[in-house]
C-alpha cells in the first residue's frame, strides 16, 4: 500500500536519509531501528508528508503523497509523535475528538454518530475513557501517551506511524499498547510503521525490520535476519548476544557489558558440605548451570547447589514448592539454588576432582539403582515404581559455550550408562542391562571464567575427563549403595 522508492531527504542542505526504498504490505507492522541520529525520525517525517523528499517518491495507494490534500492524507495516515506539547488545558475528550477533524467538512460540521463512535471506541481501546473529562495536564506521561494514541486511532487511519510509542509507558502498558496495535492490524486492517529503540520489543511485534545507519538502509528483512549478532554489533558498536525467545520464533538481543562476571575462584572438593540430610555446595560466585533439577532447572545462573535426602515414602503434591521452602530454611535463596532430591543416603556421595593442564572439573554422584530401567524396554512398563535415583553434578572450572553445555550433558549421560553396565545393574522387570533409573538428574555447572571450551564431546579434552570421571564416580557410588543394601 505504501511505496517508498529511492527516497532521500533532510533539512535544507543537509541530507539525513539517503536512498531508502521499501514496499509496505497491508496489515504489516514494520519496525524502524537504528542508533541515535541514524535518520529514523527524519524518515518518519518524510513518510508522514511533513518533509517533502528531495529525491525519489513516496506513494500511498498508488498516489503520490503530495497529490493528497492535508485532510485526505490525515484520513489515511495518522501519526503518534514522540513528544507532545500542549499549552492549554484541553480535556481528554476534547483532545481525542480532534482526531475526527479530517472527517468533518466545513466550519459547522455536525458531530455525527460515526464520529462519536470512533471517539468512544478509541478511548475505550486505549483505556482512557475513565479520564474522559480530566484535563490532559493532570495525567501522567503514560496516560497522556495513550490519549494521543486514542486521538490518532480516532482518525481511523489505514496507516499508523509511531515514533517510539512505548517511550513513557511501563511494562504492562507497553505490552497492552503493542498487543492492541497487533490486534488492530487484523480487526481494523491497520498497517503500522513504528520506530523502536528496544530491539527486543521490535523483534517481538514487527513482521519486518528496517535497520538504518547514517541514514542508509543496512538491512530490511524479518527480525531473525536483521537482528544478527554481527550486524547489530557493527551498527550499534556494542557487544551483544542473540538468543531465541522462549515462546516465539523471534530473536532476542542481550547486551554484553564491559564488566565481566566477577571472581574467578575455582570449585574444589573442599567446598562440599555433607550431612545425613543433604549434600551442599555454595559457590564463591554464581555459576552458569544447565540441569534437570527440581528447582533451578534449565539454563541459568546459580550459587547454591543442594542434593537433598528424602525418605523412601516421600510424597508431595508440590515438590517444587517444598524444595523452595527447604532451601529457604537453610538460608539459600531459592532463585539462586539448584536443588535435587534423592532417597539415597547422601553421605554415600562420591566426589572426585580431575585435572588437565588447562582445565579442572569436580564430579559428585549419589546413586541408587533400586529402580533401574532399561530405556530400550521402558515402554513395556505400566506403573512407575519405587524411588531410585542417580544424581550427577559436574562442575567445570572453565568457560563453556552453549554447545559445550549440551555435549557435556550427553557425555555425562553416556558415561553413566557405561558405569551401570560395568556394575551389571539390571532392570528387575525385564532382566536386561539397565541404562539408568526412572528419576535420574544431571547438572552441568561452569564458572565461565578461565579457559574457553567450545566443545565437550567424548574425545575432547573436557569430554575425556568427564567420561573417565563420571564412570569412576558412578561405579563407586553404586558400590556404596550395594554395600549399604547388604548391611540392611
Amino acid at each position, binding site marked *: 500500500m505504501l511505496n517508498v522508492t529511492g527516497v532521500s531527504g533532510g533539512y535544507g542542505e543537509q541530507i539525513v536519509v539517503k536512498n531508502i526504498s521499501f514496499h509496505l504490505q497491508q496489515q504489516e507492522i514494520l519496525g524502524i531501528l537504528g542508533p541515535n541520529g541514524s535518520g529514523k525520525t527524519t524518515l518518519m517525517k518524510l513518510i508522514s508528508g*511533513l518533509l517533502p523528499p528531495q529525491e525519489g517518491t513516496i506513494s500511498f495507494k498508488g498516489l503520490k503523497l503530495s497529490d493528497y490534500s*492535508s485532510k485526505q492524507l*490525515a484520513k489515511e495516515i495518522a501519526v503518534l509523535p514522540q513528544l507532545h506539547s500542549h499549552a*492549554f*488545558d484541553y480535556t481528554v475528550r476534547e*483532545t481525542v475528538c480532534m482526531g475526527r*477533524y479530517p472527517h468533518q467538512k466545513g*466550519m459547522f460540521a455536525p458531530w455525527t454518530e460515526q464520529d462519536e463512535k470512533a471517539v468512544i471506541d478509541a478511548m475505550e481501546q486505549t483505556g482512557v475513557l475513565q479520564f474522559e*473529562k480530566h484535563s490532559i495536564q493532570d495525567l501522567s506521561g503514560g496516560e497522556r501517551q495513550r490519549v494521543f494514541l486514542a486521538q490518532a486511532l480516532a482518525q481511523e487511519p489505514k496507516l499508523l506511524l509511531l515514533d517510539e510509542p512505548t517511550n513513557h509507558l511501563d511494562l504492562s502498558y507497553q505490552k497492552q499498547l503493542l498487543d492492541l496495535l497487533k490486534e488492530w492490524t487484523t480487526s481494523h486492517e491497520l498497517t503500522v510503521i513504528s520506530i523502536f529503540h528496544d530491539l527486543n520489543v521490535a523483534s517481538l511485534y514487527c513482521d519486518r525490520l528496517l535497520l538504518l545507519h547514517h541514514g542508509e538502509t543496512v538491512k530490511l528483512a524479518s527480525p531473525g535476519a536483521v537482528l544478527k549478532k554481527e550486524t547489530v554489533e557493527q551498527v550499534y558498536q556494542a557487544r551483544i548476544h542473540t538468543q531465541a525467545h522462549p515462546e516465539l520464533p523471534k530473536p532476542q538481543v542481550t547486551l554484553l557489558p564491559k564488566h565481566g562476571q566477577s571472581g574467578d575462584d575455582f570449585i574444589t572438593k573442599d567446598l562440599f558440605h555433607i550431612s545425613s540430610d543433604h549434600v551442599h555446595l555454595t559457590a564463591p560466585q554464581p555459576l552458569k548451570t544447565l540441569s534437570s533439577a527440581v528447582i533451578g532447572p534449565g539454563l541459568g545462573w546459580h550459587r547454591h547447589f543442594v542434593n537433598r535426602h528424602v525418605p523412601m515414602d516421600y510424597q508431595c503434591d508440590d515438590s517444587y514448592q517444598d524444595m523452595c521452602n527447604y532451601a529457604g530454611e537453610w538460608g539459600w535463596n531459592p532463585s539462586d539454588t539448584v536443588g535435587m532430591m534423592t532417597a539415597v543416603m547422601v553421605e554415600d556421595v562420591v566426589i572426585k576432582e580431575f585435572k588437565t593442564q588447562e582445565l579442572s572439573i569436580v564430579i559428585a554422584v549419589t546413586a541408587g539403582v533400586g529402580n533401574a530401567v532399561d530405556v530400550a524396554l521402558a515402554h513395556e512398563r505400566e506403573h512407575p515404581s519405587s524411588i531410585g535415583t542417580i544424581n550427577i553434578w559436574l562442575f567445570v572450572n572453565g568457560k563453556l559455550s552453549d554447545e559445550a553445555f549440551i555435549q557435556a550433558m550427553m557425555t555425562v549421560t553416556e558415561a553413566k550408562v557405561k558405569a551401570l553396565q560395568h556394575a551389571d545393574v539390571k532392570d528387575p522387570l525385564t532382566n536386561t542391562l539397565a541404562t539408568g533409573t526412572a528419576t535420574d538428574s544431571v547438572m552441568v555447572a561452569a564458572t565461565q571464567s578461565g579457559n574457553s571450551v567450545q566443545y565437550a564431546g567424548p574425545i575432547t579434552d573436557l569430554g575425556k575427563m568427564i567420561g573417565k570421571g563420571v564412570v569412576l564416580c558412578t561405579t563407586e557410588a553404586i558400590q556404596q549403595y550395594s554395600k549399604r543394601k547388604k548391611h540392611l
Partner: protein
Amino acid sequence: MLKRFIRTFSVSKIWVGYVLSALLLVFAFCLAITVGTVQVPLKEMLQIFGGTLFGTYEGIEPMFTTIVLYIRFPRVVLAALVGASLAVAGASFQGLLKNPLADPYTLGVSSGASVGAVMTIFLGLTLPGLGRFTLPTVSILAAILTLMIVLSFARYVDRAMKMETIILTGIIFSSFLGSTLSLMITLSGEDLRQIITWLLGSVSMRGWEYIHLIAPFFVIGSMLLMWNARELNAMAFGEERAHHLGVNVQLRKYIVLVSGSLLTGAAVAVSGTIGFVGLVVPHMVRTAWGADHRHVLPLSMINGASLLIVCDLIARTILSPTELPIGVITALIGAPVFGYILITQRKERRG
C-alpha cells in the same frame, strides 16, 4: 481538586458560559450608559432607546437624550468593539503560538499598529481610493508587518520558538517602536502630552465615525477567526501535530495571523494602544470554560467587550472630572495577570 470539579462541571454546561457572559455584557452596558458625571436613571435610558427605535420622545429631558445617544452610546459601542477585537485577537494568537502569554500588546503588534496610525494622523496621509479608511488600513499593514518581523526574529533566535523568546522579542520590538514614536512626535513638534494620552488609549469623543472605521474589520476578522476555531484547537498542540491531524497549516496560520493583525490594527487605529485585554480575557475564559477555541473565541469577544466597557467607565469616573487613559486601567489589571500566568506556567513545567 476544586478546580477540576469546576472545569468538568462547566464544560458540560457551556451554555451557562454564554448566558453569564451575555448578562455581564448587558449589565456593563447599562452601567456605562447610566453612570457618569450626570447620572441617567435606568428608566430614562430605556425610554430614550425605545424612543429612538419607535420615534416617540415624549417626556424625556433633552439633555439626557444628548448624553445617552451622542456621547455615551457611541463611546460604549466603540469600547465594546475594541475590547472584543483585542480579546479575540489575543485568544487566536495564543492558540496559534501555543503561548498563553501572547497578545497583541506583548507581541508588539499594537506598537507596530500605533506607529502606522501616528504616521497617518500626524503626517496627514491619505492613500488614494481609501479616504478615511487610510488610517485603519495603514495601522493594519503596520501590524501585519510588525508581527512578521517579530516572529521571524524569534524563530531566528530560537528555532523552537519558546514562549519566553517570543514574548521577549515582542517586548524588545515594542520598546523600539515606542521610542521611534516618541522621536517622530518630538520631531514633528506636536504637543507630546496629547499624543501620549492617545497612545495610552482612549475611546472618548470618537463618535460614530470611528465605529464605522472599526466595524467592517471587526466583522471580517472575527468571522475569519471563528472559521478557523477548530484548526486553532489542533494548532494548540503544535504545528506538526496539526499537520498530522489534517490541517493545512501554512494556509491556516497565515489566515489567523492576518485576521489577528486586522483586528489589532483596526482597534489601535481608533483607540490607541490598549494593552493586556487580549491576555486577561482569554485566560479567564479558558480557566472557567475550557480551552476549546470554538467557545473561547466567541466568549472572549463578549467578555472582552464587557471588560473594556467597564474599564472605560472606571477611567472616566474614578478621578472625575479628570479622565484617565483607558490603557492605564487595563495595564493595572493586566500586568498582575501576566505575572500570574507566567508563574503557573513555570510551575506546571517544573512539576
